[in-house]
């Protein structure tokens, strides 16, 4: 009965990322659970349901040797328009996702944060809370919630942040992680700066830990790997058969690879919770070690390998894909600190690290490797003076699927202030002239804008204050003396 994690997918983006996440989770567990037993690792994400009886009965983990009957994901699906969800349920994930845990409406939130937060939120408060409570009761010892949403739209940002606030009230002892997709510069939603700023104001106050993911960074990553893969494939195989298959992984939808990257992040994050290893890192370890001050809970994430190797039918491309995987453990360490592997567009090496956590996966990873690499890379990083040597390390014995080792780096870094500032500039461009604000004022009071601006502004100032604080201030420190003054 390990720590269970309940996923709450809100909005179109959140549901698509969630969908991909379940696919990858099933693939990972299938790779390691060859006997088809419902063990503790599976039980952190899935329930084992006996559908032969009516109503369907949940089978407990027990000794961890019972056979799998039907797996149902521990998730709650919320969307205000049913298009994406219907498509998900029609596909192969229809069996894993339970329609009991679905909250949906018809018309959508119109890309309006206020509509989502102040109108749909309260209207569906009870329905959503019921579904979440049902899911939580199915868990033996619930450890955390993971809310997947985007900040640029209406449902994901509005209803999503409403849910985060609700969880803070109703389940105070359970951690609230969010995987928030920040809008990119050329987002197709015009009001995304408003939505993002208002949502961010809520996340600062009510979430325990936010993992920002920027669409633009994901696009860059996917483009880079695709280009490299195409080059490698074209170099390997003969031109004719291969060059016809361009685009992301042969026939999949355009956002699939990007969502795959975001979903892998979640898998690596929870690897140590699910599988064992010499040095386990729980989710509460992460919040304890990487959040030095209550509101500074935005963690930059980066990982290597970035994408799970796709199931390519074509041998040439599969070989090319494998050739792109990192070759040595030392290489992955160099990768995760580089700019190209970050999931937001920021250069962490140019900014100051407040805290850094490294979770290595793989049977061959040892403390010696991690220490050696940290010692090698540490001189290139700027760390804040009160945490100049501090790294939170974890080792999980199970590697990611398809690669012998992997590494996830979660950093609390002042580079996020730059992201906030960019967001603020885009927001200001619209807000100066009060474009589109009347849509929001239909549902909320105009003070909402200013309070969100203040909250985010304060946080940005806090981060900026710590930027470059790599030297201790030249104050004389009073050491507590105890009784040593006695002769």
């Amino acid at each position: 009965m390990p720590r269970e994690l309940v996923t709450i997918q809100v909005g179109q983006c959140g549901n698509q990322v969630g969908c991909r996440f379940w696919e990858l989770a099933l693939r990972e567990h299938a790779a390691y659970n060859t006997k088809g037993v419902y063990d503790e690792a599976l039980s952190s994400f899935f329930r084992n349901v006996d559908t032969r009886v009516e109503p369907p009965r949940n089978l407990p983990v027990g000794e961890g040797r019972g056979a799998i009957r039907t797996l149902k994901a521990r998730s709650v699906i919320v969307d205000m328009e049913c298009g994406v969800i219907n498509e998900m349920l029609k596909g192969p994930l229809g069996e894993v996702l339970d329609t009991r845990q679905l909250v949906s409406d018809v018309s959508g939130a119109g890309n309006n944060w206020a509509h989502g937060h102040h109108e749909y939120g309260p209207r569906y408060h009870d329905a959503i809370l019921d579904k979440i409570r049902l899911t939580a009761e199915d868990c033996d010892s619930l450890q955390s919630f993971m809310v997947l949403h985007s900040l640029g739209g209406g449902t994901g940002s509005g209803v999503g942040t409403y849910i985060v606030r609700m969880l803070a009230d109703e389940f105070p002892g359970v951690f609230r992680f969010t995987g928030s997709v920040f809008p990119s510069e050329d987002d197709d939603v015009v009001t995304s700066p408003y939505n993002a700023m208002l949502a961010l104001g809520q996340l600062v106050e009510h979430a325990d830990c936010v993992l920002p993911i920027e669409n633009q960074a994901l696009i860059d990553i996917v483009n880079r790997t695709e280009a490299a893969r195409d080059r490698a494939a074209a170099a390997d195989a003969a031109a004719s058969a291969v060059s016809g298959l361009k685009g992301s992984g042969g026939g999949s939808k355009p956002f699939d690879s990007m969502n795959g990257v975001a979903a892998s992040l979640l898998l690596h994050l929870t690897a140590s919770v699910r599988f064992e290893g010499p040095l386990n890192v729980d989710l509460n370890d992460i919040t304890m070690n990487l959040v030095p001050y209550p509101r500074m809970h935005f963690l930059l994430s980066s990982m290597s390998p970035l994408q799970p190797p796709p199931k390519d039918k074509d041998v040439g491309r599969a070989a090319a894909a494998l050739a792109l995987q990192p070759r040595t453990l030392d290489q992955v360490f160099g990768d995760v600190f580089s700019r190209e592997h970050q999931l937001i567009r920021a250069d962490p090496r140019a900014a100051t690290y407040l805290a850094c956590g490294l979770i290595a996966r793989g049977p061959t990873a040892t403390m010696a490797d991690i220490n050696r690499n940290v010692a090698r890379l540490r001189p290139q990083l700027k760390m804040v003076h009160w945490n100049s040597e501090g790294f939170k390390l974890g080792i999980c014995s199970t590697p990611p699927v398809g690669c012998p080792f992997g590494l996830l780096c979660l950093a609390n870094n002042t580079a996020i202030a730059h992201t906030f500032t960019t967001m603020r500039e885009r927001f200001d461009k619209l807000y100066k002239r009060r474009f589109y604000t009347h849509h929001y004022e239909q549902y909320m009071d105009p003070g909402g804008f200013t309070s969100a601006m203040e909250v985010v502004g304060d946080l940005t100032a806090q981060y900026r204050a710590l930027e470059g604080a790599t030297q201790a201030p030249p104050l004389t420190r009073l050491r507590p003396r105890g009784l040593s003054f006695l002769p």
Partner: protein
Amino acid sequence: MEPKVVAGARSAAAASGSWWRYPSSGYLVMQSGSGNNWAQGFHGYGPQVHEDALDLVRKEVEHADSLTGFLLLQSMAGGTGAGLGTYVAEALRDEYHSAFVANCCVWPYESGEVIVQPYNTLLTLSHLADVSDGLVLLENEALHRTAAKLYGIARPSFGDMNGIAARALAAALLPSQPRGPYAGGAYVAPASQQHHHHHQAHGHGAGPGRSSPGSSGGGVQLPALRRADSSGGRLGGESPGLGSLGSRGGGATPPHAAASSPSASGAGGSGGWGVCTAPLAELVTRLCGHPAYRLLTLRSVPQLPPANIDFTTFTWPALTKRLRQMLVTGSVLEEGLDWSITPQSPGAAAALGAGLAGPTVNRALASWLILRGQGAAEADVGEFADPALSAAWSPEPLSVSYSTGRFGRCAMSACLLSNDRHCVGPIQRMQEHAYGMLESRAFVHQYEKYGLSVAEFQDCFARIEDIAQRYARL
């Protein structure tokens, strides 16, 4: 507070054939872990598991004929080992007044494995300094270097390091028999009393045992009762302690008889395991007599990869010479010893950190040397009794025990537990980090969630300052 490691340990024990296993219901696990939060372990989980944990202990204690004490194995950097471990130590102290509580604590890597380790380590140390009867500190860095340099493991894993630590601990705690430090197990040097007084008055000189050329194992033995006619009065005053030891230790013959037999027979004591008092009790009474000095360092020789054991010749002088130099320099590793440092070096008499440019020589309050293997009863280890190696005011700076049984596959091995000032360095470095963090109030809100305020942090740091100062002035 999370189940994976305990499950792994129990299955590993059960899989080791039918030699041993953990009792089937002797474990307590919860689900969420303590999140590397000392306050969550101590104030959060402590009261919650108080009853269950003490129940488990009571079941085991009821099986024991005569309880000497408890040995707690824990880390100092985490949440459960550090926080809940400290809580359990305090609970055991309250519940079982007359039993010893000894701790074996793992000091984390200085390069950091947990970011809040300075807080957790110092909180643990300050609480355990009051509660524990003896604290053996095992440093991860030292174990790592031992594994890498001496055992030849290029990338040591935690399993390797744990094995090294466990071997050293077993070498110290397996049964052994007391004896004197000089050749043949004598308590007084075979050289004449006069000679001995002369040497001692000058306060230097290579230990008395070595300078007498003609003393073989049998030599001039003064059939002195242990601690009776103390040469120079340094070995006095321990009989009340011994008496109570006898009543509590559950051994057979009283120690006096056992002590006199080696010197009387003159050819070494009886072989085999023989009489032994409880090792935990010996550890505490011999080494941790003063309430302010409770931190012990464990050194064990030889540190050899198993493949080399068959090709090594073991001699007592070689082993003890290296072990003594390890004690003098304060190192825990058998290699890289700086042989130029001796107790007579210019910086030796200074307190640590007094700013003298000389090399710092380690000084111990008390040491306990345990020899295992053939000839352990007669080997001469008088050089450890050098007065320059110990503080001037220590009542009994050296105790020696032996056992003729082999330990592991080494024909001869030795282990030294000493209450010395080697621990000051790591403590001071940890203090620097902790003060820096507390000043910026970093991570403090996580501890305040469980009721640990900044004032408590400062109290605890003050306590640590005390401990470090005292040891530095040893």
